[in-house]
């Protein structure tokens, strides 16, 4: 079956891109390199959305994350002088303890997923469809979740005010 082989290939290549980019993001000394590797990870996640029938979200991921949030990050990296920080110690003193604790949690996740993966199949697929993706997304956002949508717009307004207030020289 060539289609299932292609599906698996897509998934594993994107998984390697995502996890490799994430590991490079948290280990680089230079913050600009971290930001570039984070872009690689976000592109991989956008590819995964395409694979999961979420075309609208893939476009939003590229427009908002890579186009908006990452430019904001790079802007702040240029604004704040990070040359001094790049020469110093990169990890805090308790890094080994944090690493061990997180790896224990990861092994726990993996163990329970290995044992419980079969139970995901019990959930019956619903009657809905995903196919005119943008149209269904509009129905979901503007009919079913109209109040959360308005609250999200209010949250963005407050965040803009907060960001401007924080970055102002004198309040």
């Amino acid at each position, binding site marked *: 079956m060539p289609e299932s082989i292609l599906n698996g290939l897509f998934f594993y290549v994107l998984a390697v891109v995502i*996890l490799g980019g994430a590991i490079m993001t948290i280990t680089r000394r230079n913050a600009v390199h971290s930001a570039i590797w984070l872009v690689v990870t976000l592109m991989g996640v956008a590819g995964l959305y395409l694979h999961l029938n979420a075309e609208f979200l893939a476009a939003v991921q590229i427009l908002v994350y890579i186009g908006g949030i990452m430019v904001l990050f790079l802007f702040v990296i240029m604004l704040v002088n990070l040359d001094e920080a790049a020469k110093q110690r990169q990890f805090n003193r308790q890094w080994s303890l944090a690493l061990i604790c997180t790896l224990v949690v990861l092994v726990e996740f993996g163990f329970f997923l290995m044992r419980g993966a079969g139970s995901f199949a019990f959930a019956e697929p619903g009657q809905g469809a995903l196919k005119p993706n943008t149209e269904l*997304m509009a129905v*979901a956002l503007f009919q079913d979740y109209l109040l959360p949508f308005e609250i999200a717009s209010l949250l963005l307004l407050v965040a803009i005010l907060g*960001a401007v207030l924080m970055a102002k020289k004198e309040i």
Partner: protein
Amino acid sequence: MPEITTAHYVMLSAALFSIGTIGVLTRRNVVIILMSIELILNAVNINLVAFSNQLMNMSGQAFAVFVIVDAAAEAAVGLGIIIALFRNKETVNADEIDLMKW
């Protein structure tokens, strides 16, 4: 090659979440800690979209949009705080910001 199921996506998401947590807990640079938080939010989004695909329900994707909105708001405020912090203390290392520590 076995078929790719929702469990594969959840496992990938768990791995990405753990990498983000390691970044938050071990790095000193505040900008990179914020980037690690973005990694964690992306791991959550992969879970939501994978289950949306399995259950054929748009709610997961709608919630993923709300998570992206939250990530944008958090990045804007967090980077504003970093600029204010750098202006006052001339440092971006998380363990040197200990003014309120006893």
